[in-house]
Each structure stands twice: as C-alpha cells, then as structure tokens.
C-alpha cells in the first residue's frame, strides 16, 4: 500500500481531535449535573476512554473492521490485539497506515460509549458502568460499525451512506440510551425535584471543545486530506451554526427565552445531524440539515417528560433523534444518488440500528445490573456520588472544612 504523508498527518491529527471530544463531553455533561455529582460524571467519561480503548485494541477493532466472518454481520478475530498492523484494512484502499485508521476509529468507539454517561447521570455506579461499557463496545458498537463502516458489512454493501457515524455513533447511542434509561430507572425525585445545571460555563466550554473535535470526527472521516475532507469540514461548521440558530429560534418562540444551554445544545444537535451527511452533501444542504437538526433537538428533548423515561441529559433527544433526521435527510440531499432508493436504504439502516442497539443494550445493562450492579443505592444518590462513591468534593471554597485523619 502507498502511505501518503498528508493523509496520514491529517488522520492522526483528526484522531487526537476526536479523543479530545470525550474530555469535552465530560465538561459539557459535567456542567449540566448538580454539583454533588460533577466529579462522578467526569471520571465516568475518563473511565470510558480507558476501558473502551483497551477493549478496542484487544478485540473490538477486529470485530468491527476485521475480515468478514460471513454475511457482513461481524468481523473475525484476525486483527485482534491490533495484529497485522501493516496489512490493508479489509475492503479499504487507505493511503494511511492501518494503525492510524485503527486509532482513529478507537476514538469513535470511546466517545459513543461515553455518551451513555449522560443518560445515567446522577445514579450510575462507576464500576458497573465500566463493565457495561466494555461489554457494550463488543456486543453493540462493533457489530453496527461493521455493518455500516466496513466495506464488507451488509448495510455498506446495500449502499447505506454514513460518512462519520450518524448510525454507528449517533443513532446507536440514542437507542442504547433509551434502553439504559429503562433499565436504570428514574432518578429519585425526577421529574419534580429541581435538577438544574450547576455550571453552564463548564457546559459551554465543553460544547466548544466538542465543536472543535467534531472537525476531526467529520472531516477526518474522509480518511484523506483533500476535497472531500474540505467539504466535510465546511458542512460541519455550517450545520453547527444553523443548529444553534434553529434551536434558539424555536426555544424563544416556545418558552420566551433564548438560553445559553439551548445555544450550546443547538450546536451539538446540528453537528449530530450533519455527521452522517457531511462529506456527501453540498454546503447549502448542510445549512438545512443543521437547522432541522436544531429544530428536532429542541422539540425532541421534551419527549422524555411526555413518556416518562429519565434520559437525564437527553442522549435520546439530541443524539438519537437528530441522528435519525440527518441520516434520512441524506437520502434526499446526497450529491450523488439521492432519491427514493437511497432513502429506503437509509431508513432500513435506521430501523436496524435502533432495533439492535436498543435490544442488546437492554440485555447488557440488565445483566450488569443483576451482577455487578449498575445503579447506586437510593441513599447514595440522595447524598451525592462525589463524596460517597469517590470520596471527593469538586468545589472547596473554604466551605468543606476537612480535617486530616490518622
């Protein structure tokens, strides 16, 4: 294979950008939870990086991108342990080292798992979450990645388009989050008790980091440095912007206020919606997709109150719903091949991804809850995770007044 220095530099840089999104997510989510739980949220995200990266290297990469085991369903274990690091990735004609590709995709697996900390906020057990994330990466993430991202995957072969992870990351996490919300149950006191964000400045900084990292996520998925990456980059930016505008416009109309949280959320909603489409649509289409993503997001986050499931930080509403919208819009707005047939394939991918992600996540979460335990006891939840689970206080402004022991 021919290794292009420009392509490789970009993909490696993009991988680092995508990794940065998970600490960014820690800030984004961290600011939205109550102060007694902010450290727990952040360390769960750090933990997700650690556990999923290891599982990816050992087995999940091979399941996702290894030679197909038959039927386009799952890869073999031939690439387990990142073996054969110089052999061309099955089905691909990359101009970057396979190891760079593996690293890039690792960061995708990491952040998808990390997104689920948003659903379990304020009540998820740390040890249980780590076990869950490890199993989930193998059983839920890797197969969907194989179907959609691997050229040997059955959805890829049907012509399903997903440039950077509308199915693999967004719809997958959204559907998984719904299942996780059901298994975990509602937070004590939800929805009547006040559970307002404790630090929106953290959330906004986190949104900025997600925005920045998303350029690696989307433009990096061109797996080369050139025209396609440039289109993906521009589409990403435009969609983020119209996502913000769409969200706050609807918000202002519905509630009378355009909020900071709404603006930050709108950015994410627009970015989610453009993720499957960024390299496949032109710039004006990206404006529209982002805008519809923002509008979808602001409306979708109310669903949990209507249906009574505690998706604490709206993973279903922002990632799931906006991912579906973006994936379907791609069917009609793609620069090449748009039309009824593509739309049908996109819809199939949406349905299959939701079905698999929801069902298997429910099973894995149920198993973990029954064994290691996935939810903390009620008293721990009331007291706060930071002090009880992690023996720490996030903010000491002279108010904690600790004394040294022993």
């Amino acid at each position, binding site marked *: 294979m021919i290794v292009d220095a420009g392509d490789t530099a970009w993909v490696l840089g993009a991988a680092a950008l995508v990794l940065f999104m998970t600490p960014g997510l820690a800030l984004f989510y961290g600011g939205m939870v109550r102060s007694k739980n902010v450290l727990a949220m952040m360390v769960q995200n750090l933990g997700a990086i650690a556990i999923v990266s290891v599982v990816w290297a050992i087995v999940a990469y091979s399941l996702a991108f290894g030679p197909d085991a038959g039927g386009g369903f799952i890869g073999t274990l031939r690439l387990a342990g990142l073996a054969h690091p110089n052999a061309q990735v099955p089905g691909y004609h990359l101009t970057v080292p396979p190891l760079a590709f593996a690293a890039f995709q690792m960061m995708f697996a990491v952040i998808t798992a990390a997104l689920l900390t948003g659903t379990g906020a304020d009540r998820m057990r740390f040890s249980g979450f780590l076990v869950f994330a490890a199993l989930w990466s193998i059983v839920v993430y890797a197969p969907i990645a194989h179907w959609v991202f691997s050229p040997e995957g059955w959805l890829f072969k049907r012509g399903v388009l997903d440039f950077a992870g509308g199915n693999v990351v967004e719809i997958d996490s959204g559907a998984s989050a719904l299942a996780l919300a059901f298994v975990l149950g509602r937070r004590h006191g939800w929805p009547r008790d006040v559970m*307002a964000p404790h630090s929106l400045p953290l959330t906004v900084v986190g949104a900025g980091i997600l925005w920045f990292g998303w350029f690696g996520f989307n433009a990096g998925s061109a797996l080369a440095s050139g025209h396609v990456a440039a289109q993906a980059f521009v589409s990403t930016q435009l969609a983020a912007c119209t996502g913000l505008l769409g969200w706050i416009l609807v918000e202002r109309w519905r509630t009378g206020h355009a909020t900071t949280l709404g603006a930050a*959320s709108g950015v994410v909603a627009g970015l989610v919606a453009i993720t499957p489409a960024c390299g496949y649509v032109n710039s004006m289409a990206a404006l529209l997709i982002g805008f519809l993503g923002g509008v979808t997001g*602001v409306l979708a986050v109310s669903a949990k109150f209507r249906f009574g499931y505690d998706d604490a930080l709206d993973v279903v509403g922002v990632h799931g719903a906006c991912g579906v919208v973006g994936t379907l819009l791609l069917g009609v707005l793609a620069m090449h091949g748009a039309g009824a047939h593509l739309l049908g394939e996109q819809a199939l991918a949406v349905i299959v991804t939701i079905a698999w992600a929801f069902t298997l996540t429910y099973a894995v979460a149920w198993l973990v809850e029954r064994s290691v335990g996935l939810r903390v006891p009620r008293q721990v939840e009331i007291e706060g995770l930071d002090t009880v689970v992690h023996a720490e206080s996030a903010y000491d402004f002279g108010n904690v007044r600790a004394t040294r022991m022993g």
Partner: protein
Amino acid sequence: MKLITAVIKPFKLDDVKSALETFGVHGLTVGEVSGYGRQKGHTEVYRGAEYQVDFVPKVRLDVVVADEDAADVVDVIVKAASTGQIGDGKVWATPVDQLVRVRTGERGPDAL
C-alpha cells in the same frame, strides 16, 4: 449593648458601610444570604424544564453597638440601604448579654 442586624440588597452594602463609618461605627460582620418576602424571585428554563426561584440574594450585616447608639445606627442603616423598591430588607435590634474582644480579653462596652 445591642446587636443590630440588617438584611439589605447586596449592591447597597457600600453605601451602608460608608454611612456607618461616617457615623462612627468602624467594624461590622457581613454574610451572603438568601431571602424572600414581597420581592418576587425569577424563573429559569433549562431545555424546556421551568423552575421557579423564590430566593433572592441578600447581604446580612451584624454589628454590636452601645445601647445609646442603637436607635441612631438603625436609622443610619435604613436611610443608606433604602431604594424605595420592594425587597429593600429589614433592620432589627436585639439585646447582647456578653461581648469580649478575643485578642485582649476586654469585656462589655470596652470591647465595642
């Protein structure tokens, strides 16, 4: 001796402090508190979920004065803290049994 306690609007603290110093009171204790009365709070909205915040930030100040100064000190504070708007606060006086200066051990009015 009397303990004069006042709950006032935070941005009026400077005016009250200056007025007290002009009067001759050169020390006080200040705390950040929350309160509500006739002044309404505000609503907050987070992703469509609305919250009512009744409590309004206030400043509480405490100062111990001689019996003969208590009435005047109350008047000084009231005048300096007033804006004429709802939420200006309240001032009250309570008797003090004992007062000691920590550094020197002086007691009673000598500790003022």
